[in-house]
């Protein structure tokens, strides 16, 4: 049940989040990823998910966006002034929450082919009711800051380099002032200057009060952007539940 107290400055909270994959096409192999994760992210805070490759950082981040479906637990998001469990609401509500409250910058750009970069970046703002002129002007500002040459703005990003596509994706994620922002390795294929810009964008988002969760492999970015590290992965290996209990919990 959504608790009312002490939630004012905790825009995002995970409780008892448990996730495993069952690969039916591969002999029903079961892959436990995490078990009973509790995470609170405060307003104006940036938490870095930390752990070795394969520890489940991306799975956790995707779960926080309801892109992956955890087997147990809650994801409480402050939306329209009340706490909503992202895992318990109707699909259209998740879409509303994603449109206005939770932004997500994925590692790779998934968009309709042949749509120009400028339109891709402006789209989330327009979907939030920002008038087209303002949205396009904000999109231009972000693309300039992220050093996407103006001659590319009217082109579809399919032919862009990996780094350029990632920057289009970042611009798209920062054009709306989401109260919660999830960043999946936003700087993985960027040069130093652009990494610095991303750190600036993260700082600006924090200043306006965003709660941010990110995966940053780059040590410099992690140092500059993250307020604390959240370890993912280790406890699961030690804390193996007997099968029956795990099944009961699921």
């Amino acid at each position: 049940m959504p608790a009312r107290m002490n939630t004012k400055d905790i825009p995002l909270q995970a409780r008892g989040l448990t996730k495993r994959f069952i690969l039916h096409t591969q002999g029903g192999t079961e892959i436990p990823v995490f078990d009973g994760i509790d995470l609170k992210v405060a307003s104006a805070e940036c938490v870095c998910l930390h752990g070795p490759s394969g520890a489940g950082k991306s799975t956790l981040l995707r779960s926080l966006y309801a892109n992956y479906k955890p087997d147990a637990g809650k994801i409480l998001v402050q939306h329209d002034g009340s706490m909503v469990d992202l895992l318990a609401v109707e699909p259209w509500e998740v879409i509303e929450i994603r449109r206005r409250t939770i932004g997500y910058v994925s590692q790779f750009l998934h968009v309709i082919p042949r749509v120009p970069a400028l339109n891709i970046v402006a789209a989330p703002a327009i979907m939030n009711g920002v008038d087209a002129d303002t949205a396009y002007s904000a999109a231009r500002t972000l693309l300039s800051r992220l050093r996407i040459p103006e001659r590319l703005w009217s082109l579809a990003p399919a032919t862009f380099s990996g780094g350029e596509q990632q920057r289009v994706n970042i611009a798209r994620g920062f054009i709306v002032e989401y109260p919660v922002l999830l960043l999946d390795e936003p700087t993985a294929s960027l040069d130093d200057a652009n990494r610095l810009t991303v750190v600036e964008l993260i700082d600006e988002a924090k200043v306006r009060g965003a709660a941010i969760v990110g995966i940053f492999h780059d040590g410099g970015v992690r140092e500059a952007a993250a307020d604390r590290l959240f370890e993912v992965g280790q406890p699961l290996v030690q804390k193996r539940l007997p099968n029956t209990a795990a099944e009961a919990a699921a």
Partner: protein
Amino acid sequence: MTAAAKVATRRILLDVRGVSKSYGGQVGCLDVSFALYPGEVLGIVGESGSGKSTLLACLAGRLAPDTGSIAYDTKERGLVDILSLSEPERRRLARTDWGIVHQNPRDGIRMDVSAGGNIGERPMSIGARHYGKIRAEAHEWLNKVEIDLARTDDKPRTFSGGMQQRLQIARNLVTRPRLVFMDEPTGGLDVSVQAKLLDVLRGLVHELGIAAIIVTHDLAVVRLLADRLMVMQRGRVIEEGLTDQVLDDPHQPYTQLLVSSVLQV
């Protein structure tokens, strides 16, 4: 903020409960239930013979299910079981509130009537009489679906498949239906044309706040267009949820097989 942003709760637009249809001993669809909300785009995927087209035909009132109910939120009377409507009432509903986009544009447009005439037909059938206004509206819609205005008076049989499909969409959306049924809307089209059509379709659905039910076997189409997804196998809905969730984290064996079988290019 848009109007949608202020809506805290939504009324159900289409309430489907326990719909089954079989052909003799052959199962079409089995015990399908779901609620569709205004502005929501629902994708239905599954292999050939999984029952998705049968289900769509039942939902659109073209086929009577054996059991179950299909209630639609009509403007005048609220939720009404469409199966209880008389034929004229259902036809009126289909003309004013619904749109149906067929896989083959030939089934949805009149090939011997000009493009402008195709678009003007629905407005005229519900009472539009002013020629200038009808023509202006036809132009507006040709623009929206990016068909050159110079082709307004041409017959669709001189159009390419992609143009015909866009014309069919314009013809359906001109009266601003609240619900559109689409059966493989990009099915017969060249891949290069599909992207354009998807972009046009997505823009219009968002701009007009139309709810849509799209049947397809193309997972890329639902990823780009649908908010929500139902996966059908042997007549039943075996998995459903947010589109990206079902595609990225499928739980059922069949859905996992479906998703993992897509060829990457």
